[in-house]
């Protein structure tokens, strides 16, 4: 029964949802501190290209190269986020335009493509990629086997990240402080919280997670490099945060729904369903719009829980 289409789609939903999950968690951290990061797509692409570059050129074995590649992807994403944080926190530039600028700088026709072309990364397939594990030998278990126990390291790492982010935000002092900074930076400042520092750190941590999310593409899902590899996943991640009501656990649910939608056209094609593939390819994008409309109207809006100071710079002298 594990070959049945439902199980295959569920397993693929988890695999394809993982990059979205990492990126959405990162965006959540930044937004909780009050920084709207619209550069996620660029950060993911930088993570994807740097991760791929490392796996091709660093280390002898898969066990060395892959962890280094993931770490490098996180640094690349975090580095991009540092640029953004400098622009929007220190220089108080418009967050929306700055985020777009970062995506243009790093994105499909920018730095990530430049690096990919300069090192001729598109010529070869990946030397190593993350393979599905067989945790506790349980991959034969009906339904749960392929969905839960036969995934890559990245998937298990993403589950840990969800738990870690949730615990951090609701059970620790710094987590409380971040939420305060996102809700009311002036009050947080009066309490002695360093608003600038919190915003920098969470934007950078968010960028690092986005970088890892990008690496999920180039090191696991589609182990190769092409310009614009992430195909809009970064933007879907931003939308995910909105309809996860800024909660990490709901990010997981949302990411898997959209992962399933992204994987569906590939699975149907492999099974010989040939009705216009574009119809299914459009699903994740159309669903994003539909869900966004649903959560932004009526009663949902009141319960949304968007950080009150999202998108506004904080200037102590001008509050």
């Amino acid at each position, binding site marked *: 029964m594990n070959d049945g289409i439902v199980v295959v789609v569920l397993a693929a939903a988890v695999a394809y949802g993982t990059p979205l999950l990492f990126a959405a968690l990162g965006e959540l951290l930044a937004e909780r501190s009050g920084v709207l990061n*619209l550069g996620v797509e660029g950060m993911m692409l930088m993570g994807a290209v740097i991760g791929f570059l490392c796996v091709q050129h660093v280390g002898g074995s898969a066990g060395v190269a892959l962890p280094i590649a993931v770490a490098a992807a996180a640094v690349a994403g975090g580095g991009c986020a540092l*640029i953004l944080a*400098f*622009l929007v926190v*220190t*220089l*108080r*530039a*418009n967050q*929306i*335009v*700055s985020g*777009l*600028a*970062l*995506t*243009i*700088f*790093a*994105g*499909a*026709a*920018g*730095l*990530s*493509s*430049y*690096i*990919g*072309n*300069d090192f001729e990364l598109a010529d070869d397939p990946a030397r190593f990629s993350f393979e599905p594990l067989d945790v506790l030998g349980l991959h034969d278990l009906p339904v749960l086997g392929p969905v839960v126990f036969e995934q890559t390291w990245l998937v298990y790492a993403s589950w840990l990240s969800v738990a870690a982010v949730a615990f951090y935000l609701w059970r620790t002092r710094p987590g409380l402080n971040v939420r305060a900074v996102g809700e009311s930076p002036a009050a947080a400042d009066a309490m002695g919280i360093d608003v600038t520092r919190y915003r920098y750190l969470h934007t950078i941590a968010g960028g690092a997670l986005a970088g890892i999310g990008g690496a999920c593409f180039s090191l696991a899902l589609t182990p190769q490099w092409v*310009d614009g590899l992430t*195909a*809009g996943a970064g*933007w*879907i991640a*931003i*939308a995910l945060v*909105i309809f996860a009501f800024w909660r990490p656990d709901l990010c997981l649910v949302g990411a898997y729904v959209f992962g399933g939608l992204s994987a569906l056209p590939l699975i149907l094609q492999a099974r010989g369903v040939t009705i*216009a*593939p*574009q119809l299914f*390819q*459009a699903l994740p*994008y*159309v669903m*994003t*719009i539909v869900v*966004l*409309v649903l959560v*932004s*109207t009526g009663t949902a*809006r009141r319960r949304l829980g968007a950080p009150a100071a999202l998108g506004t710079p904080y200037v102590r*002298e*001008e509050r």
Partner: protein
Amino acid sequence: MTRPSVRIERRLVQRRWLPVVVPIGSLLVAFGAIAVVLLVTGHAPLPTFRRLFDAAFVADGALTNTFISATPLAFTGLAAAVAFRMRLFNIGAEGQLYLGAIGAAGIALLLAGQSAWLIIPAMIAAGAACGAAWGAIPGVLRAFAHTNEIITSLMLNYVAALVLNYLIFDSLSYWRDTSATGQLFPQGKALPDAAAWPTFTLGSVTVPFGFVVAIVVAAVVWVLYTRTRFGFETQVIGDSPRAARYAGMRTRRKIVAVLCLSGAIAGIGGASQDGDFRHVLDARGLQQANYGYTGIVVAALARYNPFATVLVAFLLGGLENAGYTLQGADFPSGLVGMMQGIILFAMLGGELLVRYRVVIERSDSVRPAEATT
């Protein structure tokens, strides 16, 4: 402790030279940063800059090609400027341009055999209508459901790209070349000759009709925004939606209208792609060009001023054109996008220096001196 501390405070007096000097300084900083990236990746900066400038504006036929690259950017830049001015962040110009191209190609094929005097205005109208319709979707959702227009307009770009692919690659649509070769190698149907837009020749430089249309559009936008009630109200709504509502302005209608206008301008850009340059619905070529996203850079650099947008489009068009011309082993693609990003960073950062001043002080050694004065 004599640790110097940096403070940023709002300028009380605006110096007149600042808005001139700061952008120039920002540009220099940007080129410095680009030089660093080039050095790190093993390319010599100065010769690269010289070759770029040469290929953009100096070499034989360079200006003609720069006009070709600049025309779509002028349209998408104006599309972004119109919406961003009202703080409506329409990043859907990319998809609106595709839809405009589909509409204009459709009407051109439909009117085959008619005179150019009929076909060309019809193409512009169809392009504008289709682009406006695509722009109306995020507009209506924003106005009536409070849905964030950034995400919706962006998602629609991907949908529009899939519509293009469907029409040319996966169906026997009206737009597709259904002859024997067209079945084998999917491509659009060639548009009739009368659908080719005229060109103007200035010495050795050829200016496409689309660029002239873009200048006209810029003038219309300028009049609309500086000389009409509509423009005034959009400005107020952008600056303070609450004040606008108290003043009785119809905010929702304006939101839809502005996003339709933005989409229509991008759609004319798509029509110009059909009529000026491609003469076919070129699904792959349009998607590779990223006109919509570059348009945002253009508009932001021009600070949403319509005439400045056309000028910046010309300059960035030169950069794009040089990028295509020089593309090769020692000039990887992606360089131009990266340069645009860095220039935009520098300009955004520089704006701070116009509004604020940076004060460096030695925190403890200075204060007692201040106290005595």
